């Protein structure tokens, strides 16, 4: 319908991400837009408030590169491997310089949901007898108007920019995902601006053939960036696997500030984008991440009704 929103990653980040913005690159283990994170590093954005349930390696890299002033999160680790060492360096001891704003997973999800739904708060049954409300005054008790007790509330989170990665979208930004959905829908609806990065640009007819598969409509999308392998070392259901080797390799690199800087130089600053990154990874590495076989969903019939 609307005009094409297809843009290069460089232009999308240059236009839509400003110094000081609250930026959410969302995707729970699945579909993490490392490509967007690297471009933000490359364009040397500063003072960003980075929101993500699981900061993961991408925010560890972004924090190491100095783009962030504050982190809003719920789980700060390298799953199955250990800690996020660059972030630990600026959050431990007397030198802690990165501001932390901490929730639980459901609290973060509820914050995005409240943001998407334009609600002043979202109630949830968490945080009872936990120290989290003590250290985060934005987690507040609220009494039920039906006299049946008190629960906790979290405030809406409305990022200036949300970036999500997806299997496919059309040029207007109508976006479809299968596999883990995380909180991308809520994070996108909650945001002022949305960048969708896709493995594949498809015709509008592909989207309209299966409207139940659409998670974000183009009307909330500002730019569509076509970036195959854009989620590596995260993964894309049906396309490529999680690169667990990379997650393990990052641990020793990130423990050493010099090694971290060298990695950023080699894999981010010195490359002009994701195509170069994929080429540098090499065909053999990419091939090793292909699924071991296909697992087709089957088709359903919506029926023609004239």
């Amino acid at each position, binding site marked *: 319908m609307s005009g094409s929103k297809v843009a290069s990653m460089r232009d999308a980040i240059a236009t839509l991400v400003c110094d000081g913005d609250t930026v959410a690159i969302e995707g*729970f283990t699945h579909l993490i837009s490392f490509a967007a994170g690297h471009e933000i590093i490359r364009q040397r954005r500063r003072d960003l408030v980075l929101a993500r349930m699981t900061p993961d390696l991408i925010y560890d890299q972004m924090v190491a590169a100095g783009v962030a002033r504050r982190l809003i999160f719920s789980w700060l680790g390298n799953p199955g491997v250990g800690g996020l060492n660059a*972030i630990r360096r600026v*959050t431990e001891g007397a030198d802690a310089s990165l501001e932390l704003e901490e929730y639980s997973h459901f609290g973060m999800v509820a914050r995005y949901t409240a943001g998407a739904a334009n609600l002043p708060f979202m109630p949830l049954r*968490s945080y009872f*007898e936990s120290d989290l409300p003590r250290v985060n005054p934005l987690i507040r008790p609220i009494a039920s108007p039906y006299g049946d007790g008190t629960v906790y509330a979290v405030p809406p989170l409305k990022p200036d920019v949300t970036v999500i990665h997806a299997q496919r979208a059309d040029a207007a930004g109508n976006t479809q995902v299968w596999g*883990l959905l995380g909180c991308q829908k809520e994070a996108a609806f909650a945001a002022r601006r949305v960048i969708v990065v896709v493995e594949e640009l498809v015709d509008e007819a592909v989207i309209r053939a299966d409207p139940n598969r659409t998670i974000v409509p183009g009307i909330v999308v500002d730019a569509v960036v076509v970036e195959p392998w854009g989620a590596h070392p995260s993964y894309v*259901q049906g396309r490529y*696997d999680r690169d667990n080797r990379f997650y393990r390799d990052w641990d020793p690199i990130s423990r050493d500030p010099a090694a971290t800087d060298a990695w950023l130089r080699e894999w981010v600053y010195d490359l002009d984008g994701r195509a170069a990154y994929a080429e540098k990874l090499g065909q053999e590495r990419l091939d090793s991440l292909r699924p071991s076989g296909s*697992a087709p969903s089957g088709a359903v019939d919506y029926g023609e009704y004239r």
Partner: protein
Amino acid sequence: MTAGRPGTGGADAGFTKSEMMIVAAARELAGQRVCFVGVGLPNIAVNLAKRTVAPEMELVYEAGVFGARPARLPLSIGDPTIVTGATAVTSMWELFAYYLQGGLIDVGFLGAAQIDRFGNINTTVIGDYTRPKTRLPGSGGACEIAINARQIFVIMRQSARSFVDRIDFRTSPGNLGGAEKSERIRREQGWLGRGPSVVVTDLGIWHFDETGEMRLDFLHPGATLDEVRATLGWAPHVSASLAPTPAPTEEELRLIRDELDPEGMYTK
């Protein structure tokens, strides 16, 4: 086959302490219907249970998967293998709101960095919150799991640094200051969860007694009570009928070594 695996359960036990811990944790899941799988050690314990004592058990991953049938053990709790062939994939909003908070989870299976005698858990910081000695991952889903899952299982290695008299930060509530207070508060505030019921360590199996404190019910082969006391920040309740944990079976060890963790990520 076990050559070179450190920390064996006994001189000639043929299995490691970690393997014993994982096997013991898996067995505790017998008869459970719906289990919420936490990151790390819970992940391998639950996947072992699914292949042994609890084949009918539904695995729920906070990433938004119900009825997962992972063909391999995922390193992370979000992985394409937990999706392919699953019963249902949902948004995380629906997973946390409808499945967990809605009361469908029988067991929430968690790991921890620090735990106290009442099963209160710290996964946030070691030291002061604002100037921590060690910054840990934080809650993830643990805080709401601890409150809403019908019961909580914990798996973690025992050490004087982790089994402490006072945890530095209460991320996820257990039995609070004891059974009486915990039951009153849970009732008054309408929690669905009854709290922690099992803690499996590399030394033994703890359940919770009527005071709400951990009680050592099983001691793993090769572990001693002295070792237990030396890795604990308080004087433990020990069951009058303390029994040895049955050693891992060949099949349990085969599943761990050949199928679930061939690289020894969890069992080192």
